[in-house]
């Protein structure tokens, strides 16, 4: 095997049944590849990685990889992860969530983790729908689409997950698609190496539910859509408002320095200990 595949296999769980549970062509598998490659490139050991997820198709990801893995309750992955990171700051804690997991039931934990700037990486696979439960609308379902609970038409506006992260206080926010797999590698790598709360929004497709209900074709057609509608941040800078209409940006959206929770908490410990001594 060539290096890259050996690499993937190095991280997969040998005692887990493959092929994995996801539908043929589902983007979650592509994201998993990028995640593994990025972890490898960053040079983390398997023992220091904790991979946390909530519930959903995306939530099934950690079980396949040979890290410390934690499959929590729906929407709460970031809160579990916060406890892990604070209890053992040496661990590299990565959280993968579906859009429902992250910003429907889990929306509050998401904005609060961003605000606190806890040193975690949050990877959100945004497939615009609840995949696991069979295709109900999610907070990222675009206006006008169909789902099993908006079979007439969807009337709600969608969250822009990345913008929400920025406003809530995240110092690093990137967006990619599963079509642009290598960009994903690099976004994840940057996110993993970032000190503080780093968000990577991964635009993916659920052709089984969303694609089918909206006659958007299969995995291939939906990835083609990603290709056609994504514009890199660099390129977007050269485009007019008009040209950007209907497109979305990919790349590093925000990268800034903000005080990180654990560093700050260390100050409290110092103050507490000196106070106690007196």
């Amino acid at each position, binding site marked *: 095997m060539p290096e890259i595949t050996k690499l993937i296999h190095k991280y997969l*769980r040998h*005692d*887990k049944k493959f092929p994995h549970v996801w539908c043929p062509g589902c983007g979650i598998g592509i994201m998993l590849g990028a995640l593994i490659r990025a972890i490898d490139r960053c040079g983390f050991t*398997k*023992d*220091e990685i*904790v991979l*946390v997820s909530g*519930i959903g198709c995306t939530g099934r990801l*950690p*079980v396949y990889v*040979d*890290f*410390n*893995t*934690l*499959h*929590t*309750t729906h929407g*709460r992955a970031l*809160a*579990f*992860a*916060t*406890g*892990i*990171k*604070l*209890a*053992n700051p*040496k*661990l590299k804690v990565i959280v993968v969530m579906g859009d429902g997991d992250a910003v429907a039931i889990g929306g*509050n*934990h998401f904005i*609060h983790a961003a605000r606190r700037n806890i040193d975690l990486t949050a990877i959100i696979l945004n497939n615009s729908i609840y995949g696991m439960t069979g295709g109900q609308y999610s907070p990222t379902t675009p206006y006008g689409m169909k789902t099993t609970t908006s079979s007439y038409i969807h009337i709600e506006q969608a969250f822009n997950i990345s913008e929400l992260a920025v406003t809530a206080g995240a110092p690093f926010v990137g967006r990619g698609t599963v079509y642009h797999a290598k960009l994903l590698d690099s976004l994840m790598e940057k996110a993993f190496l970032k000190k503080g709360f780093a968000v990577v929004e991964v635009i993916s497709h659920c052709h089984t539910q969303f694609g089918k209900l909206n006659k958007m074709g299969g995995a291939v057609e939906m990835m083609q859509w990603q290709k056609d509608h994504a514009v890199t941040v660099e390129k977007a800078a050269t485009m007019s408002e008009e040209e950007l209409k209907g497109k979305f940006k990919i790349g590093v959206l925000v990268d800034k320095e903000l005080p990180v929770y654990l560093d700050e*908490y260390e100050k*409290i*410990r110092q*103050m*507490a*200990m000196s*106070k*106690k001594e007196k």
Partner: protein
Amino acid sequence: MKKKPKTPYKEFLLQGNEAIVEGALRAGCRFFAGYPITPATEIAEAMSVKLPQVGGTYIQMEDEIASMAAVIGASLAGVKSMTATSGPGFSLMQENLGFAIMAEVPCVIVDAMRGGPSTGLPTSPSQSDVMQARWGTHGDHPIIALCPSTVRECYDLTIKAFNLSEKFRNPVIILVDEVVAHMREKITIFEDEEVEIFNRIKPNMPPEWYIPYVDTPSGVPPMANFGEGYRYHVTGLTHDIRGFPTSRPDEIDPFIRRLFRKISQHFSELQFGEFYETDDADITIIAYGCVARSAKRAAIDARQKGLKVGMLKLNTLWPFMRTAVEKVLNTSKIVIVPEMNMGQISREVKRVNKGSTKIFTINKVDGTIITPQEILARIKEVG
């Protein structure tokens, strides 16, 4: 618990809530995540001051759901953890409490009981979350719940709670009523007293051999902390012995039964309470929490009046102290169960009652404590 009380010691006037904090720190708790709520807030406040002094961490989360989640996360990372709340928050914690049971993650949850249902009576005492502690989360499951009556018991039972939680890899709930939570009493802590502290049993085999949810004679598998080289999978799904999700009935059944067995098998280690002059009692009062104090007073007063009255104080509420209760059911003609709810523990007493003992209740739900007089009056009424 072995104790060799030695000087130097220190006497404190502590609130029940403060004693819980002291007990937790003594037991090795180094992480607290919570969300303020009356009458449990003092626990969070004291933790926010004390934990950083000992290198621990306090965090106030965005709600109780997140608090419970963070506590489980911290425990998985190897740190003894705790949260504290009251009824409304306890209701919110139920889903993740079930996760801790399913994934066998040690942790301690304090529920300082105030009047309910709903927002109820935020500053008044009650004992009405007893059944919730047992049944609040979905799916059948075992639980351990302890209940202090004094400030000293707040300290001691909190240490026990951590020990039991670590030993059985199960969440332990401390049900403290508002009276005991806010009451101040003198407690003496010997600085160098030997307190038995139990830490989770870690795997000692090589990582490749580690089977995280394997059955053992005690029913409790050894627990590896995240980051210690034993990489495994933790999930709230029904899982096999390796921790991987399974829907095979032949794997699920022994797993769920083991969860129950690891508690039931150690039933006798989990029973804390006090028999007060029950041996010759015609009438026994079974009580817990602040009401046990009134009950004792009532028993003393009744004895002075020549009535043979005893008291059984329950410090363990779950698993239900069946053996102790059966003992008094066998010897007493009448059992009175005074409770600050509509009758929760009295249901259990009735359930295990096989003989002809008459069971009477005193139920108070108006936010005031049951007084010794009220119990005495009931004794006279039914005796």
